[in-house]
């Protein structure tokens, strides 16, 4: 589980859903949740919030400028690579802290990921959970 401490910038609600925009170490984050400020009091601008996502939801890309729908992008340097038969675990040092990604070992080979390489870690808006 990756946990980043962020700050809420805005909460845009429609029915039961809210799109929450956050910031942490100058990076922007968005999450969509089935909650509103009425059902979860902490969903207010300026409030601190934990931004939570699983290791296997962290997508890695070699370039940040690619046209892609993912809203949460964390540039960083690979500081650890461990590979097993099917899966590999990578730790990326980013401005918001170390982020762990678990991807297939095939993907590590295809993208030519190695220690010290600069890459971008990304997470889909609907994969991010929030907690007080």
């Amino acid at each position, binding site marked *: *589980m990756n946990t980043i401490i962020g700050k809420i910038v805005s909460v845009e609600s429609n029915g039961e859903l809210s799109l929450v925009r956050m910031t942490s170490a100058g990076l922007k984050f968005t999450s969509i*949740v*089935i909650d509103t400020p009425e059902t979860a009091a902490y969903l207010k601008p300026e409030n601190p919030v934990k931004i939570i996502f*699983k290791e296997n939801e962290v997508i890695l890309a070699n370039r940040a400028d690619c046209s892609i729908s993912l809203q949460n992008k964390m540039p960083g340097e690979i500081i650890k690579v*461990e590979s097993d038969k099917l899966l*590999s675990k990578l730790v990326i040092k980013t401005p918001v802290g170390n982020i762990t990604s*678990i991807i297939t070992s095939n993907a590590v080979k295809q993208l030519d990921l190695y220690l010290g390489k600069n890459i971008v870690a990304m997470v889909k808006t609907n994969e991010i*959970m*929030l907690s007080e």
Partner: protein
Amino acid sequence: MIDVKLQKKLKAAGGDLFLDVEFKIRNGELVTLYGKSGAGKTSIFRMIAGLLNPDKGRIDVDEVVWLDTEKKINLPPQRRKIGFVFQEYALFPNMTVLENLKFALGKGRDDLFIKDLIDIVDLGDLQYRKPDTLSGGQKQRVALARALVQKPEILMLDEPLSALDYEIRNKLQVYILQVHKEFNLTTILISHDISEIIKMSDFLIELDHGKIIRQGIPAEVLTNHKISGKFQFVGEILNINRQDFIFIITVLIGKEIIKVVADEDEGKKLSIGDKVLIASKAFNPIIHKIN
């Protein structure tokens, strides 16, 4: 509304304990008292039932004073409308199931209600059997029916299911919830089983050393932190398997067995038997109509 204020010095295994609690229970609610042994749960039960006198206190039930130490009011147990179920069944061994229920009702009282009770807790086929021919779960169903014979307003359950295995416990929980709703009871439960508490109770009161330390909606109190994921379950770890950089954790949730993937660092902190909260976003699971 049950309004309870109690104070009493108790002798506990670890020394003296000063019990000092104040809480309200709304009619029709199922409330659980939770806490370590020696926290004062059973003493509170006994004081509400009139089996133990507090040093100081007051108990109002729907504005009827059951106890007021200042005004020296103290209704005897038989005048407090309470039904009890304990972990041990305490049935009369020489009487059949039906005779046990009739005995609890008292002589010359209308026993039509007993037939209803027998139907509700499915004792029809067992009513002419004696307790020692019944399984633990069946005995506890008889004990539950017996507690309701006098039509109590309050049902008090002191760890009624802790001696039973998982499957039977699950069935009994359904029976208890059924009678709780059917007879519009206010029910107070003592339980240590987190999934049981979350499944059954509307409200949780956590005690420690004779004081209330937390209270609220069970899932919120017991899971500590609120997390936005709406796909949440409480379960028990059955197995932990390490594979590549992940742990595959097998969890029993209700009667279903599921598997969850955990990271290495998380997996190392978990053990078989741990109670866990599983959370995912409502966006992730797919839904598939079966019939």
